[in-house]
């Protein structure tokens, strides 16, 4: 098997603290995992806030260098990506999707600018018609069309649509991997579903691997192939989604699992009442 993405004992430390009380924070500790190039999958990272999910994602995207350990994308060390050309090349294979669809687009820029810019730069297209065609194709994948998007601003579209456009944009260069950091945490339940469904489609039809970062265990369960659970920078549990989430073994995973409230008033209120009594 050839690896798409390999993380080997990746660590990241931050210096934090104020004027006099500085200390080192180990944001990510000894993280290792591998994604297979041949077998696209949805690889989910879950964990409480501050557990190092975003930091890991940023390292994969090359926005952050690890304190130690190596990250390799298609055999090449991400840290070795230096020149602008290499960087563009890397970005054409690895693309991000951000948490807040309203934040990810500058409200003062038309949305198509992002799409066109991506097409021009990564596909090297000069011709207007070719750019339009490539853009439209990508939008079709997410169930939209260029006609609907052209000349519009982010506030003119719903969060779900924006997130789809973000995905479409990420698809334009024909990436192998999409890193989605909490792509649904800001939207309501219905929209959530439309986006995670889209991920599933991409994996199946375009063969794109997706690293899906979330603290929503329910959607994680819903779409993931594999899951890792992070806690204070450590990966505490990893494996197939049904196993890790359906039947967690690590203490923290179990706590997390049990904290998930089901959308059922009877069970949910009982859990809270239980909790109340415990205090």
């Amino acid at each position, binding site marked *: 098997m050839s690896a798409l993405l390999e993380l080997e004992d990746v660590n990241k430390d931050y210096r934090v603290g104020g004027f006099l009380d500085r200390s080192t924070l180990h944001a990510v500790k000894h993280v290792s995992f591998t994604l297979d190039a041949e077998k696209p999958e949805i690889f989910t990272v879950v964990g409480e806030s501050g557990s190092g999910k975003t930091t890991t994602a940023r390292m994969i*995207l090359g*926005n952050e260098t690890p304190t130690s350990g190596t990250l390799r994308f298609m055999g090449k060390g991400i840290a070795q990506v230096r020149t602008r050309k290499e960087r*563009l090349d890397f*970005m054409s294979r690895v*693309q*991000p999707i*951000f*948490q*807040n669809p309203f*934040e*990810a*687009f*500058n*409200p*003062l*820029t038309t949305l198509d*600018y*992002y*799409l066109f*810019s*991506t097409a*021009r*730069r*990564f596909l090297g297209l000069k011709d207007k018609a070719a750019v339009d065609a490539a853009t439209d194709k990508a939008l079709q994948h997410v169930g939209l069309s260029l006609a609907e998007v052209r000349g519009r*601003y*982010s*506030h*003119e579209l719903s969060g779900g649509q924006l997130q789809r456009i*973000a995905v479409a*944009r*990420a698809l334009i260069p024909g990436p192998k991997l999409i890193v989605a950091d909490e792509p649904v945490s800001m939207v309501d339940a219905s929209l959530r579903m439309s986006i995670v469904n889209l991920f599933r489609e991409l994996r199946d039809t375009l063969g794109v691997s997706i690293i899906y970062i979330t603290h929503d265990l329910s959607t994680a369960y819903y779409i993931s192939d594999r899951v890792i659970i992070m806690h204070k920078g450590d990966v505490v549990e990893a494996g197939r989604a049904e196993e890790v989430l359906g039947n967690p073994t690590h203490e923290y995973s179990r706590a997390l699992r049990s904290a998930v409230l089901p959308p059922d008033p009877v069970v949910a209120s009982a859990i809270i009442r239980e909790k109340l009594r415990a205090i």
Partner: protein
Amino acid sequence: MFKILRDLLRYNIEFAIGFVLTLAIFLFALAHFWAPLPDNAIYLLPPDMPPSAQYWFGTTSRGQDVLWQMSSAIWNTMLFGLSVTILSRLLAVAVGMISGYLGGKWDEFLMTINDTMIALPNIPILLLVYFVMRDQMSWPVLALTAALLGWNYDARLIRSVTLSLRNREFTRHAVFAGMSVPQILVRQHLPYVMPVIFFTAMNNLIWAIGLEVTLSVLGFSDINRPTIGGMIYWANQHQAIIAGIWWWIAFPIIAVVLLFLGLFLLAISVNEYIDPRSRLSRMGA
């Protein structure tokens, strides 16, 4: 462009007042091209005439019509002030944005230069430069020197705005959309920096005009070219205030105040127009 102007004029009373004031002063200044006498001609009119129907703003002790002197003085001073302001804004924007966006070594390098410039005291440096340049010290050179001294504090302000934009998601998104650094800075960040630019431009303009006056008062100016500072200089040479020739100084100062108020009103109302916050509410976001 025209539509924006129309909108502003119609719906923003501050803009309307500012516009009228500025336009009036501008037209007044422009009129000097049609002045009946060359602007440095002296003693062609009776000196020291108080304001009257014939000489609206009186005449100077040098036998010049204050009206026409003012007209060219405002023109020249405006030219100088705006040149300084524009040049220094360009510098401040370039340094502030690049420093804030690129960070790291660039930031350290640019901010060290910036801090050095902040520490340089303006007046002595300008006067020394004046000596070095001597008769090559034309107003554009002076404007350039002043601009070089007048950008640094504002560059810091702009840097801090860019710094906060750098970590916004849309910036990261833009990077992955393949946008180049200039594209990101100009298309994505500049709109957010615009209000700072406008706001600081007003203070810078006043500073530049004040500088010109200061240099003139200290006797460092091109006396062949009427400016506000130049008028004060000559009025001073003729002890106009003591001699009671108040109109020689009062009218130009009133004009400067009006010009400033006009530009200020324009700046705040245009600011409101271009401020991303209000622009967004206008767009309906």
